[in-house]
């Protein structure tokens, strides 16, 4: 009796859920219409969700047999959570944009399909048109899984008024670590009580693991080699890079020891920091908000110029009908045509993922008027793939904690990174090769 009751109740609930899903996502494929669910994040604040919505509407208008339902899923982390939950529940989205380092985790979950055959069908030139650095996070064991879309690199922003005030040439950003330190010392401003009024430089927190990776590369080191499955968080190059951070933050006190990813762009706009390490993705926000002239530069070098690519890629999911996967590819291909890549870049500040996008007339006019949008593209010559591994989120938390502990003066750089290495080895033990 009780069981019966429970079952009919469950049935009712299930019916309700199916009804809800039917109205939102699944839909009736009665007229041969393929309806695709597409999760997308917007990694950097702003009205960018609207731009995606417009592009999706354009696609739906031009493609009568496919309807893409775009689901805004918050920041990168919530998007990954949404995707993982959906995959675990056996109801994956058809398409999602997920942060590029998550690919190995998606593979470990057996969630995504390789796209080699689709890419091959487009012809060899199609893939070659993407900036090579952006494709480095697309391959695993020689197979192609991810199409670049909203892609960035870190850059250095500098406040020209602050430079002038400190007696520095407002048109010349620091090119080396030594210059960065020197400039930061001159740019920092304290009041009579010794409180900071303006930091010399801010290396943004929150994704400081990403920025740190660039510093290690600049110093000639590598944190993680995905192909060889090797991890080296405590190499001498990494320790020296972290020592440099600690010098800026706790020794010289010209940089804040901690911050958050969302708070530092407003800090720069408010004049609270004279230089800022952040993503190219905030360029349009800064242009619209800053009431002083500012510049965009390569990250200063140590042994070499170097940055990591960042951002989000398109993935197509397993356990959906073949017709959906085919339609998903059509949508992705449409989204990364040179015209659309150019449009997305102009709206956001992200780098257009394809080289031919910079030949599109509107884009040509735009970058002629706004040359700072080209800096990140030029910097791609020195760009590497981003750190990635199954369970990337844990690796990232381990590294962030080490960085925060060191800049907070709680642990020496060597000790912090050695601890991180040990913790990460344990967390990735099933994947690492010794």
């Amino acid at each position, binding site marked *: 009796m009780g069981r019966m009751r429970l079952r009919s109740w469950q049935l009712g609930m299930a019916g309700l859920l199916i009804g809800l899903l039917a109205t939102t996502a699944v839909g009736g494929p009665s007229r041969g219409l393929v309806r695709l669910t597409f999760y997308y994040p917007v990694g950097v604040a702003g009205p960018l969700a609207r731009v995606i919505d417009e592009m999706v509407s354009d696609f739906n208008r031009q493609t009568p047999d496919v309807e893409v339902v775009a689901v805004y899923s918050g920041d990168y982390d919530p998007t990954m959570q949404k995707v993982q939950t959906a995959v675990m529940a056996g109801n994956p989205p058809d398409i999602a944009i997920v942060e590029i380092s998550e690919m190995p985790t998606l593979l*470990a979950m057996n969630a995504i399909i390789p796209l080699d055959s689709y890419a091959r069908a487009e012809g060899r030139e199609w893939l070659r048109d993407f900036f090579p650095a952006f494709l480095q996070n697309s391959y695993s064991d020689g197979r192609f899984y991810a199409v670049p879309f909203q892609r960035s690199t870190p850059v250095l922003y500098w406040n020209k008024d602050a430079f002038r005030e400190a007696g520095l040439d407002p048109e010349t950003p620091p090119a080396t670590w030594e210059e960065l330190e020197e400039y930061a010392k001159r740019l920092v401003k304290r009041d009579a*009580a010794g409180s900071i*009024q303006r930091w010399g430089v801010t290396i943004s*927190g929150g994704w400081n693991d990403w920025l740190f990776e660039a510093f290690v590369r600049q110093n000639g080191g590598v944190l993680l080699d995905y192909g060889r499955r090797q991890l080296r968080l405590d190499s001498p190059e990494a320790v020296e890079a972290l020592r440099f951070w600690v010098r800026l933050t706790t020794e010289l006190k010209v940089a804040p020891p901690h911050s958050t990813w969302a708070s530092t762009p407003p800090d720069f706009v408010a004049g609270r920091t004279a230089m800022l390490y952040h993503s190219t993705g905030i360029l349009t926000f800064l242009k619209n908000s800053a009431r002083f002239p500012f510049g965009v530069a390569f990250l200063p070098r140590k042994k070499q110029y170097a940055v990591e690519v960042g951002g989000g890629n398109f993935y197509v999911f397993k356990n959906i009908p073949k017709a959906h996967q085919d339609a998903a590819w059509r949508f992705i291909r449409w989204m990364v045509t040179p015209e659309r890549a150019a449009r997305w870049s102009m709206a956001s500040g992200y780098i257009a993922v394809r080289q031919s996008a910079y030949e599109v007339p509107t884009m040509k006019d735009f970058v002629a008027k706004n040359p700072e949008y080209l800096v990140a593209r030029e910097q791609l010559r020195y760009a590497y793939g981003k750190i990635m591994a199954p*369970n990337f989120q844990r690796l990232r*938390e381990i590294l962030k904690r080490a960085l925060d502990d060191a800049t907070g003066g*709680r642990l020496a750089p060597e000790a912090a990174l050695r601890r991180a290495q040990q913790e990460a080895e344990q967390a990735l033990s099933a994947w690492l090769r010794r």
Partner: protein
Amino acid sequence: MPPEASCYSRARGTEVLLYLLPSLVFLAVFTYWPIVRAVATSLLEWNISHPQPRFAGLRNYIVLAADPVFHLVMRNTLLLALVAIPLSIALALLFAVLLHEPLGSLRPVYRAAVFYPTMVPMAAAAMLWVWLFNPSIGLVNYYLGRLGIPRVEWLYDMTWALPAVMISWIWKNVGYLAILYLAGLQAIPRDLLEAASVEGAGFWQRLRHVTLPLLGPTTVFVVAVSVINSFQIFDAVHIMTQGGPADRTNVVIYYLYQQAFRFWDIGVASALTVLFVVGLLSVIAAVVRQMERRVFYEV
């Protein structure tokens, strides 16, 4: 007589069961069954490296015991409870006593002002506090500067981030506790206080010897609610600090969320859930038992 009575009570019993059934079904589906599942899952190794769950005994509990972040998380959670709960109870009592005084026509205004933070969703309030604690343009530092106190980096500082979260939590909770205390105060018979006055007791003596003892039952409830609330803090941390810097504001529920939805370690997350439920229940049981010994329920 007896058979009749038992027959009657059996019929009553069925009736009672019938009335309770809806909530029983919901509790069973959404509370009891998940608890059983959590205990079972906590014995599985089930994570990114092992997407197929397999039995692993107490492995997840051992992992947690050896996890330095877990120790930090426990420290933060307990610190928050031990500092923020007494402070918020003291403030709530103060507000309640003040609100209980004749304040004339402004009383509803004051009462609304004290209760208001309770009605703001914590997520929205946390956004507000992010701005208040902003080191350069935040009001908190502005007033500290006015008072000549050195400015603090608040949410960016390893030492001050947790106190900042505590402050926002106290702000959010005091109003609710104050209303509970106000109800308790209003239930105290006037004649007791008047009798004390006649005997020559001053304000403090009346508070100490009449009001506070009679607020005992309220205090038990207030403490229990505060313990639950403080252990469950999540949204404030998620929005204000994401547990940082270096996990100095990471608390149990936030760590649970990280384990489950960011690291995707379902086994460890379940073990954490079990520890959390057992820990919370035993803390509350201990607190309530301790306090009830010293409480009069009858006036």
